[in-house]
């Protein structure tokens, strides 16, 4: 415990916490992306994957607990660092000049971070908890089922991104996440002391950070863009007809 308090109270220690929690979150961002990209393989795949995750409580719950801990540590140390940093400069320079030679991404980590957090809350309500009020389609996502009676994630994504304000918010949030990462990952490598030349490439970690952020952006955004361009339209329309038919027959049997 003493050891952890020592790390927590030192400036470099908090940066380790920031960097390591950031790393775990990045790992999650990658696995989540790999799950999502299965939409391009087809409904059978992604729905099988979804069911697999949901039935494996021994994977699901530890992962959720670890992620939540990392989010708390990340946000907590972000605010603690910010408070210390502001206290370190009580009088600012005339006209508050923008930090000299500092990139936009490096100056706006807190802004991008807070918007990502807000988006994450919305995102969980939208898909994970299936709150009908936020998805703008009037359909209850948690009741969607495919032809084998499994939760239909494929249809949920098609419907979810069929409303443009949601897709636009999603794309903006992913853009900010990647802005955060383009600097954050560079800082993360720096915080844990990894910044050397590898295989003849100088400052390899800096370059990895930039490329990684760009690739993540393109892959994540490909999903809403594909849906808005009509990907999976036939599947969606068939399912919608089915849904309305069910709703009508449901009403009739209730009468």
């Amino acid at each position, binding site marked *: 415990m003493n050891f952890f308090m020592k790390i927590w109270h030192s400036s470099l220690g908090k940066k380790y916490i920031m960097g390591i929690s950031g790393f775990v979150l990045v790992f999650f961002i990658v696995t989540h992306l790999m799950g999502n990209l299965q939409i391009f393989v087809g409904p059978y795949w992604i729905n099988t994957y979804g069911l697999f995750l949901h039935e494996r409580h021994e994977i699901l719950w530890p992962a959720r607990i670890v992620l939540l801990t990392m989010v708390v540590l990340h946000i907590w140390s972000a605010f603690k660092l910010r408070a210390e940093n502001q206290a370190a400069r009580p009088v600012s320079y*005339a006209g508050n000049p923008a930090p000299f030679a500092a990139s936009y991404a490096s100056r706006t980590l807190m802004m991008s971070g807070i918007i990502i957090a807000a988006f994450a809350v919305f995102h969980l309500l939208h898909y994970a908890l299936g709150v009908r009020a936020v998805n703008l389609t009037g359909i209850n996502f948690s009741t969607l089922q495919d032809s084998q009676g499994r939760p239909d994630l494929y249809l949920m994504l098609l419907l979810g991104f069929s409303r443009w304000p949601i897709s636009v918010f999603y794309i903006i949030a992913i853009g900010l996440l990647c802005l955060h990462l383009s600097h954050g990952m560079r800082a993360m490598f720096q915080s844990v*002391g990894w910044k050397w030349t590898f295989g003849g490439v100088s400052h390899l970690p800096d370059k990895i950070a930039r490329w990684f952020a760009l690739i993540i952006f393109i892959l994540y955004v490909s999903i809403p863009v594909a849906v808005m361009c009509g990907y999976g339209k036939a599947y969606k329309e068939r399912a919608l007809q089915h849904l309305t038919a069910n709703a009508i027959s449901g009403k009739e049997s209730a009468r």
Partner: protein
Amino acid sequence: MNLTLKIWRQKNAASPGGFETHEARDVSPDMSFLEMLDMVNERLIAAGQEPFVFDSDCREGICGTCSLVINGVPHGGRKGTTVCQLHMRHFQDGQTITIEPWRARAFPLVKDLIVDRTAFDRIMLAGGFISVNTGNAPEANALPVSKEIADLAMDAAACIGCGACVAVCKNASAMLFVAAKVSHLNYLPQGRAEKDRRVKNMVAQMDQEGFGNCTVTGSCEAVCPKEINLDFIAKMNRDYAVAVVKGELKANSGGGVG
């Protein structure tokens, strides 16, 4: 050339400060920035007014004493240049120039443009040295140092301790200074024996002085007159992690065969 100067005037840390505007007439483009300020001060003295106090010593860019923030940038922001080596030809006729002291909680203001940088001295006292008994210089070839390591240590040792890294950092962090001082000795065989203790003690002292933390914005390396780069901060982060994880071994009290 003629310039308008907005210069920070403050009697001491306890009293409030503010900008005073002065016209600098007939400035030669060949003057250094400090010579231009000398001229302004001489005219103030001749007119019976109080001159502005500012720090300087060598005036050749090697001592790290001069410390002015010019238009919001420490040392004026020219690559690898201290303000004593900054020449007036880099300014335009008729320009308005703002001159301020370093601003950081750990560097309390003394007067006008002078701040107290003894926080750096205390960090050095915490570990920026090698514990050896003095005596004759050892045989130069007894401790081989590779060219790469010697170059790296030399790059780090170039730090003149001016504090521009703190002054420019949006977090007023002293990370670049401390990293340069830690790395300089940690790279070399003479310093390696006390590597862990050095990095832990110097970082602890840095934290105690009230400097901010590093966000890796790179402002410090951009403004450093000795062009010390962020890689040394990565090295310090690594050395610190190793030192903390390793912990310390303690000898049995008494010890020996007894």
